[in-house]
């Protein structure tokens, strides 16, 4: 209920800004439009992929490959799964939630989330073209192992939930 109230107030402010020609408010409206368009280019496709993944990949496969017994191999699988992802956390989070529901262990889910922000191949190429290959590779070489190690540690604190 609180959420709908926030959304309602936001649009009232937006409406008022446009009628009163309040510049920051109009700017905010433009940002909203730009971002909505950007997300709409990603989300429908990402969710179709999530749906396909859900019906075609059996729970048993996920449990075997990404479950508690799969060990470090599961983390590598999670990284490979994350690599072709597009968008940002707003796509990776629903995908990670599906993996978790289907039997992936919590540390593997955490690695998947971390990797989805680091190893996305199209983004890496884009980053390297602006920042240089050395920057991109060093960033990856440092952050990725930290993601895996921290996932293993964090999962101990998240066991009970």
């Amino acid at each position: 209920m609180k959420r709908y109230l926030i959304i309602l107030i936001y649009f009232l402010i937006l409406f008022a800004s446009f009628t009163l020609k309040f510049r920051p408010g109009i700017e905010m409206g433009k940002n909203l439009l730009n971002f909505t368009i950007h997300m709409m280019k990603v989300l429908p496709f990402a969710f179709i992929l999530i749906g396909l993944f859900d019906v075609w990949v059996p729970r048993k496969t996920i449990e075997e490959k990404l479950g508690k017994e799969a060990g470090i191999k599961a983390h590598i699988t999670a990284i490979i799964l994350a690599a072709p992802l597009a968008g940002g956390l707003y796509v990776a989070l629903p995908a990670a939630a599906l993996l978790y529901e289907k039997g992936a262990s919590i540390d593997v889910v955490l690695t998947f989330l971390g990797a989805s922000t680091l190893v996305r191949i199209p983004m890496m190429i884009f980053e390297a073209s602006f920042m240089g290959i050395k920057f991109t590779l060093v960033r990856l070489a440092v952050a990725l192992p930290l993601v895996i190690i921290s996932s293993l540690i964090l999962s101990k604190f998240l066991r009970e939930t």
Partner: protein
Amino acid sequence: MKALWIITVVLLSVSFIKDRKKTFEALKIAVKRFKKLLTDFALLLIMVSIALTILPPEKIFRLLKGPGLFIGSFLAAIVGSITFIPGFISYPLAGILKEQGVPYTILASFLTTMMMVGILTLHMESNLFNRRFAILRNITCFIIAIITSIIIGIVFGEIP
């Protein structure tokens, strides 16, 4: 982006040829899962539009150009955590900042938190997992980003 569209269309077609019923099932799941997160996405869009209005790229530009290495890196980590700028804007922005002489350390801190830490997606993350998960993961990723930027600084000779 185009790769995502192509992959989706190809896989959807393959799935449709192989099993029509399963494919409709998949589309139903897609709609159901999207609907469940609809208010989360709406809130995210609202917060992003507010954040981008308060902190537009030009302002971030000025903010990261001024201070020294340590304050700059910390500031960059905070800005990266609270804003949400898609890659096609944030990387070119970082590229310009690099040309202007902003240290790699600061840019690594900015880009890494931008991708890994999501204050604006916190409510969605709590919803999909739980609050504890969301908070612990974001704090951990913030620390990872700081460590990464320090090592970038050492590798690029900015931190002795």
